[in-house]
């Protein structure tokens, strides 16, 4: 059994197996960074997308046919990778698209009080217990810890949505990761 994802290409919807989706997504991202400097970038990409859709139509005319990795590989071979398209010309080095970054949230999935320590643990990638101990010790230090904790509880937003939870752990907000975190919940 394989999970499928539905994508829209040129206004038509196609159902892809998960690995096929990853491959196509990666391919389109490569093209996007290859044409990044081109004035006609959007137009070129949408032309290419609609041609890819044509190829999918040819091979899977019957409705309900799921597109697999082999089919995506075949179409990428026909369309060509950025280095095929450059055809011997220098390919500008593709830079990493967007680095994921962490945001400080209160972790509502693993909390003792307000999830402040747990959230800080996610942010710095440290065991939350460490912050909990520090806060407890600092309470006896003239109650400063208590005040700081209260301020953080008020100021730091809770991670409620899936997007926020991904940002809290520094994972990229992609359809794939959102899917993953849903699976983990089950």
């Amino acid at each position: 059994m394989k999970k499928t994802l539905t994508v829209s290409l040129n206004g038509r919807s196609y159902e892809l197996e998960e690995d096929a989706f990853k491959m196509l997504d990666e391919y389109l991202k490569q093209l996007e960074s290859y044409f990044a400097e081109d004035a006609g970038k959007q137009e070129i990409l949408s032309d290419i997308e609609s041609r890819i859709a044509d190829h999918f139509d040819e091979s899977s005319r019957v409705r309900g046919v799921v597109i697999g990795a082999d089919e995506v590989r075949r179409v990428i071979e026909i369309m060509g990778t950025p280095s095929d398209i450059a055809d011997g010309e220098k390919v500008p080095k593709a830079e990493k698209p967007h680095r994921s970054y962490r945001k400080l949230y209160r972790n509502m999935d693993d909390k003792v009080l307000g999830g402040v320590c747990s959230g800080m643990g996610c942010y710095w990638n440290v065991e939350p217990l460490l912050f909990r101990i520090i806060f407890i010790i600092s309470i006896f230090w003239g109650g400063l810890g208590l005040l700081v904790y209260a301020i953080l509880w008020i100021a730091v937003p809770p991670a409620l949505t899936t997007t926020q939870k991904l940002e809290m752990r520094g994972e990229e907000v992609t359809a794939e990761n959102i899917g993953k975190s849903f699976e983990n919940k089950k």
Partner: protein
Amino acid sequence: MEVENAKAQMRKGILELCILSVLSKGDAYANDLITKLKEAKMIVVEGTLYPLLTRQKNLGLLSYRWEESPQGPPRKYYSLTDKGRTYLNELHRSWDELVETVNTLRN
């Protein structure tokens, strides 16, 4: 490898001339252009065509209109503009000159 590289560079330059030549014989969908250019072995991968089409359109050498197709959504139907026609004539002239020069030097 060096020969391959030189061939690739030549193909690229000549490809522009070929696109305009095909369109000078009549308007065409991108898919028609691809079929013709592939048959002539002018392009290997289809992705090569689209950046060129967009660039030539932005230069005003060709234009397109959306045409309904028998199946699927409307497609871009390309045609040569007057500017494109003049440009193509210019390219043809320099192509002929080049061929003549090269032939003279080779023989």
